[in-house]
């Protein structure tokens, strides 16, 4: 009786399927619970990996709910690579589409924030510019300066207070208000830090990251919000080691 890995894998991820014949104990009897050790190892290890990668989601859902929901996800989307540091890239979309969670609309965006924090944590190390590097440019040149950003920098836009939800659950922040929040993630050395961004800062930063010169990006910020504070955004980017080079446009 030959047991193929296709059959083994099928029964591993689907508890309703029969355990493969041909798997036995020392007396040649059906493996039974012995096969379930593998079923359990796979489910527990992948659930643990998701709980490690999405700690805020795990806290928001509670242990039992998270385990049940992770169990559905891991069976429909097992990891595509052995790099568990990347597992769960499809979890936000899964949460968005999962019917029983439709009343918790913010979950998917909070999961996107956690994925972005994880990407930032593992991103390449690139040295930042010196804090005074902008001073090398003449005042009339500043509007034409283009910035490049560290691989650890991430931005997210959300109609939900995702930064406040994260901070309330993970960093002793105050109870979230029902507002939309855009987020910037910086990593000064090894620990990614999320910052809530105003609408003006988000518009400006999005333009900068798309390669717009400082002058044009600042205009985008002012267009998006009257209270846009370019100086505050620059200070945040420099303090977060977010900028890795400055060049002048032609």
């Amino acid at each position, binding site marked *: 009786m030959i047991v193929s890995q296709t059959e083994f894998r099928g029964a591993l991820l689907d508890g309703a399927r029969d355990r493969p014949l041909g798997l*036995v104990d020392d007396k040649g009897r059906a493996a039974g*619970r012995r*096969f379930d050790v593998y079923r359990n190892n796979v489910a527990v290890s992948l659930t643990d990996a998701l709980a490690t990668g999405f700690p805020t989601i795990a806290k928001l859902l509670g242990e039992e709910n998270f385990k049940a929901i992770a169990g559905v996800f891991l069976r429909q989307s097992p990891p595509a690579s052995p790099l568990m540091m990347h597992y769960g890239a499809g979890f936000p979309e899964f949460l968005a589409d999962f019917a029983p969670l439709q009343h918790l609309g913010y979950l998917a965006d909070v999961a996107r924030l956690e994925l972005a924090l994880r990407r930032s944590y593992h991103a390449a190390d690139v040295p930042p510019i010196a804090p005074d590097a902008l001073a090398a440019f003449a005042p009339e040149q500043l509007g034409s300066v283009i910035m490049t950003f560290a691989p650890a920098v991430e931005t997210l836009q959300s109609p939900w207070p995702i930064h406040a939800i994260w901070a309330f659950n993970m960093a002793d922040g105050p109870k979230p208000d029902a507002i939309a929040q855009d987020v910037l993630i910086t990593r000064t050395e090894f620990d990614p830090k999320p910052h809530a961004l105003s609408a003006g800062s988000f518009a400006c930063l999005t333009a900068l990251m798309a390669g717009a010169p400082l002058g044009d990006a600042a205009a985008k910020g002012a267009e998006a919000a009257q209270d846009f504070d370019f100086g505050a955004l620059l200070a945040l980017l420099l303090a977060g080691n977010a900028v890795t080079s400055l060049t002048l446009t032609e």
Partner: protein
Amino acid sequence: MLDETPHFANLPNRPGVGYKPQHYSALTTDPGDVGWLEIHAENYMSSGGRPLAQLRHLCERFPISVHGVGLSIGGEGPLDPEHLSRLKHLVGWLNPTVFSEHLAWSTHDGAFLNDLLPLPYTQATLTRVSDHIDQLQNTIGRQMMLENPSSYLAFSESTWSEPDFLRELANRTGCGLLLDVNNVFVSATNLHTDPKDYIDAYPLDKVGEIHLGGHDEDQDDHGRPLLIDSHGKAVVDPVWALLDHTLALSGPRPILIEWDNDVPDWPVLHAEAARASQALAEVPA
């Protein structure tokens, strides 16, 4: 020009521990009896960040054993070429003292199942696994060691004993062996054989490293003990006794304490390493 010589040419015949970031400061201030470290290859395949920075420091101070847990050497399909290149890259820049992987499969049809799944010991498996070992050794340009699994069940199609199967693989491919003594104890208990017979039949001359770890206890459908390799507890006395039996036959070897789940504080882990040191001290060199 790359320095092709590993920072450390051999693992010392001393205890090592599976590296966990929470022990970084203890290891870099006073590692005590711990003479080398093992890392899981897949945890260090990022582009940057803290894990790589810590590893760059640690590899200057300790011989490093890289232990792959994701290649699926026993897989029915071809080895993942992307994963092979990641391993080649890691082994290339880190230049570890040794590299090892498992006699198991974990990936099938594009899904990585995050567990070490069992293989039937047949002629077909032998051919496939030795081809995969050849491919890996050619890719990374060095010898690997292959680890014996924990078994919870058997395949009725198997025609080889596990020690004979591993010996034949080592003979065909020139690979070394990593002997997990806890796995031997777990498998022997689960399949009702004598773990000492397994050790006595094992090609100990090919063993470059020994693993020890803790296991959980459950029961099968017939109320008989079913041990589960969990790496979440201290090593039990019968496994220490089996280590003594092994070392008496093999002579001293590098011994790794594996503790991957419910990772304890440093003093608890170090006490396990100290006990391995004691076991080594009692072996005639």
